[in-house]
């Protein structure tokens, strides 16, 4: 089984909106990585409620180059850190949004974190919002034409066979012939590693 990893074509990339000026100079003009200790926990009855909702205000102090994030009554101070090795950000392209990909391998425990709540979003990864159907396979032929590693025969033949297997690569990657696109390469990240400070907003 081959899953192609492609680049977005230059024309579509040029058309994408860019990050606001303060963030664009970080490393990639379309993606920024923000690392938090712990995770974002939202109190919801329905997971879709958080779509489009404000999380907080991200400020970038141009003078000192220090980012701050204000979430509710908490102010997080952070810094811009260079990544030891550049990261490629891959986004699933084509196929349905079924369960998330999990690559087998050993996991290493890193440093301890201050807050360890898990976002309810994690649970949603198991729930497909759209059921995979045959039409997805057809629409992917366009993607397949651009990517060199997969030919059209492979897409059609493998469609139903692989959906049942426990896949080391994501389920969506197999059956519907989905591939991954490299959204960009990132060399720096914003990391908020200090304890949040409570702030009181003045009226």
């Amino acid at each position: 089984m081959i899953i192609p990893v492609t680049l977005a074509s230059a024309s579509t990339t040029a058309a994408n909106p860019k990050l606001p000026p303060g963030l664009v100079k970080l490393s990639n003009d379309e993606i920024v990585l923000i690392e938090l200790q712990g995770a974002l926990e939202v109190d919801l009855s329905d997971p879709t409620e958080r779509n489009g909702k404000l999380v907080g205000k991200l400020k970038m102090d141009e003078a000192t180059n220090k980012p701050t994030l204000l979430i509710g009554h908490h102010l997080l101070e952070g810094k811009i850190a260079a990544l030891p090795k550049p990261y490629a950000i891959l986004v699933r392209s084509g196929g349905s949004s079924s369960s998330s990909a999990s690559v087998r391998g050993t996991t290493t425990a890193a440093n301890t974190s201050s807050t360890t709540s898990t976002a309810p979003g994690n649970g949603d990864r198991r729930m497909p919002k759209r059921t995979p159907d045959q039409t997805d396979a057809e629409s992917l032929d366009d993607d397949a034409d651009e990517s060199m590693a997969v030919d059209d025969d492979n897409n059609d033949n493998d469609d139903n066979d692989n959906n049942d297997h426990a896949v080391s690569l994501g389920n969506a990657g197999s059956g519907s012939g989905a591939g991954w696109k490299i959204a960009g390469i990132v060399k720096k990240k914003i990391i908020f590693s200090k304890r949040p400070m409570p702030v009181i907003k003045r009226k």
Partner: protein
Amino acid sequence: MPEYDLCFSFSSTNEAGSYKIIELTPDLTTLIETAIAKDEDPRLSIKGQPDEDAVLCSSTKTYGMRSVGLSNTVLVVTPVPDERASEFAEDAVIIRDQLNEIIELAPVVPKLHKLSALIKNREYDGDNEDEDDDGMDRFTYHDAKQEIQASDVEIDQGLKTRRVLIINNELRPIAPAFLAHLLELILNLLVSLSMNYTSVSVEALSSALADDHEVSRAVSTQVMSWFGEIKDAKWKMDVDGVVKELGLGILRKHRHDPIAKDDLLAAWKKLAGDTFEPSVSLKLLEANYIETIDTMGNGASVLRYFPASELPVDPAARFSDLFLTRSIWRGEEISPFLSDIAVNSKERDKLLLKYCRTVTGPEGIRYTARAQYNG
């Protein structure tokens, strides 16, 4: 001070799980950046069957993928796409995904052993069989590219080193005896047609083989490409490669009955002929033999056929086999048997460190098994 609204994506539930972060090696970074700059396809793909560990292949190299968990959460944040801009504030950025793991890449040896296992029943030894073969599954070159976890260049290289022919679109390993016979024919023809081995006319040689010895041109051309370079219809023979194969032909008969080193060298030189005799050297047969002192006879060195290619690929199993064959090894004796499972000498040293116990003696450093039981 610029301030931006950080929001959840408009379809965060749908997008959750659709991003992945891969930590790149320096050469991959350059590869991707050049591809972005030139708007070319980087020719990367992830290969693997559902039950195998995934690998990332470029056109020339293979990288193993390992998932590393993070205790921190990484948010992938992008600007708002134009079609949704109205729903957000002017300078808003949205969280597309929250990730807790990163995929690390490490260069690995291409996993070609599967190839040998899949085609070993289809050896080619010169007999022309019928086309319609009782519906047996043929493993084609295309199948190899789909199923073998290696880059294209590595697959091609692997087919050459493992002496696999492509006949009627099927991959078939050449029978060793047939290969030895072919090489002898070629060497004889070079002499009889007085061709210079550095520049042989491909057409002349393959015609002679086809007409007088019924060797198909497809086969002879492929064999020539394994043992040298074909450029502008001229074949430049790789002398060491041919001489090595001749030596292996003799050695293969001594899997169980050792042959005295001097006897082997003598027979080998005779086979190579005057022109190539200087190239005959035991070093060419590295990783294919075990040398012992014949205590029963006159104390001379004897050699036994012991190819690295038949040893297990998994390091633990391989070391177990090596130490069963001989309980203590010198560094330079054991290293050749590790070169096909270690990417470079640093990796090889790591394997030695992990699986062997070092014994420093009057003869220098030697290696012995670490565990006393067969685990």
